[in-house]
């Protein structure tokens, strides 16, 4: 476990946090899809590096799943949905981008202050990975709550799942069951989202989640 391998792992995990920030400030739908694809590529590299360092060949499979599904298939499919629904200009933020970025920085600081002291007994690889992974998870959550558009929320949710995969691979020897399930659940989640998006389009001519909020059973 040389210095170099640690540095590279650190760089890739840190790269994911940086791309999460990129996702936060995208104001075009296609820009956001590209940023998400980049997020998945960095994840795949990071997982592959972990597989190499830990000498765990099954992690290569996780890396391949991340690359094929999340960096290629899902962005392409979402791209087509966005084209078909003609919503490529609609990215509405609930709050301004500046505030969102500040909140993101706060969340990153929070996850580092929470995770580093707690994982004192674990080795440095795990510590850094977990702190970064928690930042990615929290930034994904932040993206989900600051965007009104349904497609952006899907992307926020998937970037959150990327953070979970990062955490799961950082934990040495975590059984494959969980990794496959994570990848699988993202796929299912995507299908579900797809169905919902089409239905929403069919019924209301908008995928703006804000428009869905107009109804509450108690007010009618």
């Amino acid at each position: 476990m040389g210095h170099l391998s640690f540095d590279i792992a650190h760089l890739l995990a840190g790269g994911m946090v940086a791309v999460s920030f990129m996702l936060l400030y995208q104001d075009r739908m296609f820009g956001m899809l590209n940023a998400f694809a980049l997020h998945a590529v960095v994840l795949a590299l990071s997982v592959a590096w972990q597989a190499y360092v830990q000498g765990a060949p099954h992690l290569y499979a996780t890396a391949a799943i991340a690359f094929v599904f999340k960096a290629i298939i899902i962005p392409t499919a979402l791209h087509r949905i966005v084209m078909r629904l003609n919503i490529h200009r609609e990215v509405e933020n609930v709050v301004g981008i500046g505030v969102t970025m500040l909140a993101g920085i706060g969340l990153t600081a929070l996850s580092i202050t929470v995770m580093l002291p707690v994982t004192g007994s674990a080795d440095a690889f795990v510590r850094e990975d977990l702190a970064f992974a928690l930042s990615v998870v929290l930034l994904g959550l932040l993206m989900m709550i600051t965007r009104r558009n349904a497609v952006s929320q899907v992307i926020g949710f998937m970037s959150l799942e990327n953070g979970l995969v990062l955490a799961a691979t950082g934990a040495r020897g975590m059984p494959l069951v969980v990794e496959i399930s994570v990848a699988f659940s993202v796929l299912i989640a995507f299908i579900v989202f797809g169905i919902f998006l089409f239905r929403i389009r069919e019924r209301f001519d908008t995928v703006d989640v804000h428009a869905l909020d107009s109804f509450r059973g108690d007010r009618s």
Partner: protein
Amino acid sequence: MSSLGNYGVAAVLGVPAVTAALLAMIPSYVVSARLNILACFLAFAAALSLFWVRPEPNNLLLVDDFNVYLVVLNTFVGFTTSVFSASYIGHELENGRLTPVYLRFYHGMYQSMMFAMNLALVANSIGLLWVAVEVATLSTVLMVGIYRTHEALEAAWKYFILGSVGIALALFGTILVYLAAQEVIGEGVEAMAWTNLVARARDFDPALLNVAFIFLLLGYGTKVGLAPLHAWLPDAHAEGPTPISAVLSGLLLNVALYALLRFKMIMAANARALTPGPLMVTMGLISLIFAAFMLYRRRDIKRMFAYSSIEHMGIITFAFGMGGPLANFAGLLHMTMHSLTKSAIFFAVGHVAQVKGTQKIADIRGLTETHPVLGWALAIGVLAIAGMPPLGIFMSEFLVVSSSFARQPLLAVPLVFGLAIAFGALMLRLHGFLFGEPSPSSAASHASYAPVFGHLALVLIAGIYLPPALVAWFQNVARLLG
């Protein structure tokens, strides 16, 4: 003996899984409704067999005193709900809210949901537990959105987003628990098996466990519907088909709470980690009091009973948070009674909404004149859920209150306050449902009363006489829970 037990577990999991695939292919809804009932009954019979023969626990599956009773409860309510569902969907087809194509989908999802919940209950690996809860969530999301109305889609979307976030937080917590275990037990599947985790938990890093438990509490707590994480629950209950509301309230909330309790037991085995009790007591009390007040302002009948579910999950979480043999006993009993009563109420409410053609509380009046049997069934259910003696919920609530008076008298004050507020709200509404001018639109009812009265009879019997064997059983489990 143990190989027979393996067959039992295989049947509990395999029957719903195979039936789900079959049901997706059968076009006739009459046949599939019957097959649905049959499969649920077989799963229930297999679950009963686990009382006598149990498999040896392995790294993936585990049947112990705690989960066997939940598996039986789960499959039993699943069975009665399938009977109710068969009469419910006939009516929905008639008025065109569902089409036969959707029913195929509905039955397939019903069984995959039963499979996922049974799997969550018998899972030993905490990873498998997580996967099962996720599958159960996804299948119920699809069911909630099945009417495809504006409101149903909104409810399903909200449920999906909040449920996914909750489940994601729970996975992060699960990974942290694995990390803590991996330092002590070593890498691999062994470090995810709950039996190993509890046995070795005293050597785990307490700081890591603490952070993990916070994530797990928020994650699975969202699925339990604890305030302030409950926002998905009323919508999902109100807009989905009523059999699904019954299963959500009666079973899925229990499954999520069960997951939380398993992790609480790991925490309790480590003396240096934080005690989860106070956190659970606080969230339970907040849910109870919040939901009790919310009961007053409801205009939709299913939404009102959804808030009542939040209230009762609050009471159960409070009881388990208090801990100790008596409070745990009360919590277990309340979990059972609430499942039975709440699903009975939803069965009745489903038929009431069908005969009155509305879910609005203001339009449901004078049931005793127009539909006496249905009206009185609903009345007994509401009296039971409000905690009137001699029904079972009175017993369990009384035990929760008396154990908190004995241990922490100050906590009993807000508890009793919340119970009284909720009681008032339910009585106020019940009067409107039963008496007064009957509302004009009143179709004839062709309901099946067996599930409703079956459940209510069990609740009544449990309130009057609990068999000593059952008491001993609950006491044993309560000790296990610590």
